Every structure is written in structure tokens, then in C-alpha cells.
């Protein structure tokens, strides 16, 4: 007897090979993620080049907290909670800027040094009676470490060192990002109507490359059976994919596009492509001579602020910079070939998942680590489950 089709039936697959879609829609799961993942783990904040001079700062959101990242007069990059010790107003109200003389809270003019020390209070005589101890009232520090120019912060004082957190997946990006001075030349952001994991998932799984006309034309493996490019799966949910072979992996000419080989970054071959996904929400995508970084700020189960950065070599002349920008924009800019399609895909998933007519997503492809294998996606959700203390396949 044929069973009626029911969109809530569990797939007849190992539990590791499917997901309960409610992990993408449930508000309590989202709140739990903030506490168990985002408040615990290292998160990319910005690139070192965004803090070029002493006093340069960036203000970023991590687990719902506003964090100032600033370069000090001693050239050291530090991070602090963006909260005045007086009456808890935000000390910095801009996304970025230079505040070489330190920070002054706009509300009552308490001032802090770039090292976070409380330097002065307005009308100090008023505190004489209580002998206010300024040395105990500096900005609250946040752990901050830098790897290959990438500035990370964590709200967890007991978190392992950043280098240990990154582990062996670092071999995919430490040379191209960390051995030559780079700078951010592109930044745009958008609030996507999707869950944050679906964006990282989209950045990880390669099966969807079939969605992109540009990828179908330039990457033989998208429609072929095998690929010299292989998935790399490392500890802690990190993954990536690239090839060790000598083939020109992206055939731009076949698609009628300009080559990205000129000015290849250290360790990259001409027209090579690498993607590294750091758990939970950073993607490093390298197309030979240019880099894209995706950073996320989850706003709700179905709202995610995504920041896109493009990086090139610091000191490029105008012509070479234009070459890198052209390559970046061809695929990734707001008018690029692939990015608009990816956004449509994850927003479509979110609409359908909220309708809850199909409860499970299938991540069951096994292809010997060819790019369209789902092994990296499974590793990602396995780590999510470990940190959350629950299976991503059985939420209820």
C-alpha cells in the first residue's frame, strides 16, 4: 500500500543526513543560539586595514552586544563593550571613525583613553565626597585576537586561543591573507529575510552552484561528475574546498569573462578558487587575485544582517586595483552574477520553512568529497548540535 505523502514525515535516512527546518524558524532556538554559540565563540569583527591609524575604530554587534574595536596609540588593537561606566549610554554611536584623542561619552562627557582607561569625568568635584575610583571604571574589555589580518573577538573569557579555534582549516587562507598587506576596498550590507545558518549553509554547499549561470559556464564540475577541487573538513565545524592540482579550475574564458589570474595572491594559482567557511558565520572566498569576506549579525530567526567585504593588495596602483575590483564585482558585488541569486534562494527557503509544510531538509549527498558532496554541511550542523546540546534533526 502506498503511503500518502506527508511533508512532516522524517526522511528514511540516517539522522545525520537531514535537518529539522524548525532550527531555522523557531524563536527559542534562535535565543538559545545567541547564548550557546554567539556569546561563546570567536567571531570575525573586521579587517585590520579598517583600523589603519591609532584612534581608528569600528563598532560591531556580537550576540546582541555593541563592541568597539580600536587601534591604540601603541598600535595594539583592543576591544571593549561600547557602554559608558557612568549611566550605560553607548560611548560610540558611529559604525566607524577616528577618535585619536580617545572616546567621550556624548551624554555626560566622561572620557576614556584608547586603551579603555577612564581618563576624566565632567565636573569632578561632585564626586569628591565619595572618592570615585576612576581606575576601576575603565571600559569593559573584550577578548580580541588577530590572525592573518582578520580581527576576531569573543565574549567568552575562557575561550581557547584564536589560532587553536581555527585549527587546520587555516592552511586554506593563512598564506593568501596573512603574508601580504591587504585592505578592504568594498563594503556593502543588507538585511536578508532569512536565518543566519542558511546563509552560511549556502556559502558552504556547492550543489547549488547549478543555480548560477556563471558557475555552470566556468566550473566543469558543476555539471560534471568529478572535480579536482575537494571538500576539506576540519574540526569545530570549519570546512572549505579547493584543489591541490595544477589545473586552471575556473575557466573564465569559457564563460566569456575576463580572467582573474593577474596579480594572484600568495599561494594562489591563476584562476584558482578557494572557499573557507569558519563556524559559525564567516566565509572567506578567494578568486585568485581578490577576496570576499562575509560576516553576519543574526537579528532574528528570519532576519540576518550580512556584511560583504572585498579585499585587495594594499599599495596596488590604480590599474591593478581596477583589475581586482572588476573581478570582485563580476560575481560578488550587489550587481554581480551570483550574489543576487543566492539571496533569492535563501529568502525563498525561509518563506517556505515558515509555512512548515515540509519539515525536513535533506543533506544526504555522499560523493567522495567532490564539491557537491554534503559532507561539509553535515559537519557544520554536527558542530551546531554539539554546541546547542541537541540534534539538528529533531528539535521538538
Amino acid at each position, binding site marked *: 500500500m502506498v503511503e500518502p505523502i506527508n511533508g512532516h514525515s522524517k526522511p528514511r535516512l540516517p539522522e545525520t543526513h537531514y535537518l529539522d527546518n524548525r532550527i531555522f524558524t523557531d524563536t527559542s532556538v534562535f535565543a538559545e543560539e545567541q547564548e550557546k554559540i554567539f556569546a561563546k565563540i570567536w567571531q570575525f569583527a573586521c579587517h585590520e586595514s*579598517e583600523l589603519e591609524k591609532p584612534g581608528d575604530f*569600528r563598532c560591531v554587534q556580537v550576540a546582541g552586544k555593541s563592541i568597539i574595536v580600536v587601534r591604540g596609540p601603541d598600535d595594539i588593537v583592543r576591544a571593549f563593550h561600547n557602554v559608558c561606566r557612568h549611566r550605560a549610554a553607548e560611548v560610540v554611536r*558611529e*559604525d*566607524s*571613525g577616528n577618535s585619536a584623542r580617545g572616546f567621550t561619552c556624548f551624554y555626560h562627557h566622561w572620557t576614556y583613553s584608547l586603551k579603555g582607561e577612564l581618563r576624566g569625568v565632567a565636573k569632578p568635584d561632585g564626586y569628591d565626597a565619595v572618592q570615585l575610583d576612576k581606575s576601576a571604571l575603565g571600559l569593559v574589555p573584550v577578548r580580541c585576537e588577530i590572525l592573518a589580518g582578520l580581527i576576531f573577538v569573543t565574549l567568552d573569557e575562557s575561550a581557547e586561543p584564536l589560532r587553536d579555534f581555527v585549527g587546520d582549516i587555516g592552511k586554506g587562507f593563512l598564506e593568501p591573507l596573512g603574508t601580504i598587506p591587504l585592505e*578592504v*576596498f*568594498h*563594503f*556593502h*550590507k*543588507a*538585511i536578508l529575510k532569512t536565518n543566519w545558518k542558511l546563509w552560511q549553509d549556502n556559502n558552504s554547499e556547492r550543489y547549488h552552484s547549478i*543555480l548560477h*549561470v556563471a558557475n555552470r559556464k566556468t566550473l566543469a564540475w558543476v555539471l560534471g561528475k568529478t572535480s579536482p577541487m575537494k571538500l576539506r573538513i576540519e574540526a569545530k565545524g570549519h570546512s572549505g574546498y579547493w584543489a591541490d592540482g595544477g589545473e586552471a579550475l575556473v575557466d573564465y574564458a569559457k564563460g*566569456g569573462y575576463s580572467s582573474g589570474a593577474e596579480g594572484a595572491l600568495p599561494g594562489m594559482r591563476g584562476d584558482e578558487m578557494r572557499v573557507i567557511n569558519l563556524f559559525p558565520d564567516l566565509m572567506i572566498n578567494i578568486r585568485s587575485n581578490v577576496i570576499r569576506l562575509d560576516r553576519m549579525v543574526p537579528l532574528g530567526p528570519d532576519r540576518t544582517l550580512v*556584511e560583504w*567585504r572585498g579585499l585587495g593588495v594594499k599599495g596596488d596602483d590604480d590599474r591593478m586595483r*581596477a583589475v581586482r*575590483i*572588476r573581478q570582485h*564585482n563580476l560575481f560578488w*558585488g*550587489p*550587481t*554581480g*552574477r551570483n*550574489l*543576487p*541569486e543566492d*539571496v*533569492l*534562494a535563501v529568502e525563498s527557503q525561509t518563506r517556505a520553512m515558515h509555512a512548515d509544510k515540509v519539515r525536513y531538509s535533506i543533506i544526504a549527498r555522499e560523493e567522495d568529497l567532490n564539491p557537491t558532496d554534503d559532507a561539509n554541511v553535515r559537519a557544520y550542523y554536527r558542530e551546531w548540535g554539539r554546541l546547542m546540546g541537541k540534534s539538528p534533526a529533531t528539535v521538538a
Partner: protein
Amino acid sequence: MSAAVGDQEAARELIQRSAMLLDAEDFDAWVKLFDDGGIYELTAYSTEIRRWMTWQSSDRATLDKMLKEVGEHVRDTAQRRHIVGMPLVEISGIQGHVQSTFSLFRTLPDGQSSLYMIGQYDDHIIKRSGVWLYAMHKVIVDTRMLDSFTHIPI
């Protein structure tokens, strides 16, 4: 009508026609508004990284290829509508500088409209065989948080 006034009128018509052709998705006709060496550039200033950015810079051949592929992409289903302000025109011989402000709206298939983008055009034009064409069609956008990304020029 004097020649000077005629050139000013023709320059304004170029800007309006350009916007209307994009709204109608008549890309073949839109690309023909560019001189052979003409460039389309989309720029914005990022307050986050405190620098000007080039989001797109394409010559006529690249534009032509990109727009011929539009039909192969999965893309935003909204209908777009430009509202272009009165352009300021300065003509000098066969060259001109035209500045205009614009708003771009999106209307979804269900009829909901929203403002998509505002900005300005800062265009350099050139007269070829009596016809004004874009030498540099530069779009400077104020709006950087977009509801949807696009394969179609602004």
C-alpha cells in the same frame, strides 16, 4: 530653437530615455546610448570603511554581454520605475556634463511598491553624428542597504 538650447534639450532627453529603457528592460536600445568607448559606473561611499567604492565599472561590450545574460539568471521579479529630476546641463562644443537626481522604485507582482534606491547621475556626454551619447554614465547611490540585489543597471 537655437543650437545651444537644442543640445540642452537633447541631453535631458538622453537621461530620461535611458531611465525609461531600463524600466522597460529594453537593454539593446539602452546599450546603444553609449559611445563606443563609453563606460557605465556605479559608485557609493561607505561610511563603514570610509572610502568611495566602485560597485560596477563596465565598458559597452561588457554591458552588452551582461545584459544579454539577464534572461539566463534567476532574478528579482519586481518591476522597476525611475523618477528622474530635471537635469542640469553644461554643454561645451561636442561634450557635455549632465547632473540629475533620481529615485528608483520597485513594485512586486502583488502590487506593493517601495523605494529601492536614491542617488544621482553624474554624466559626461559626447555628440557623435548629431546624437548625444554617454561617454561616462556615472551613478552615485545614496542607498546602500538594498532590498534585493540586481543584474540590471541602475
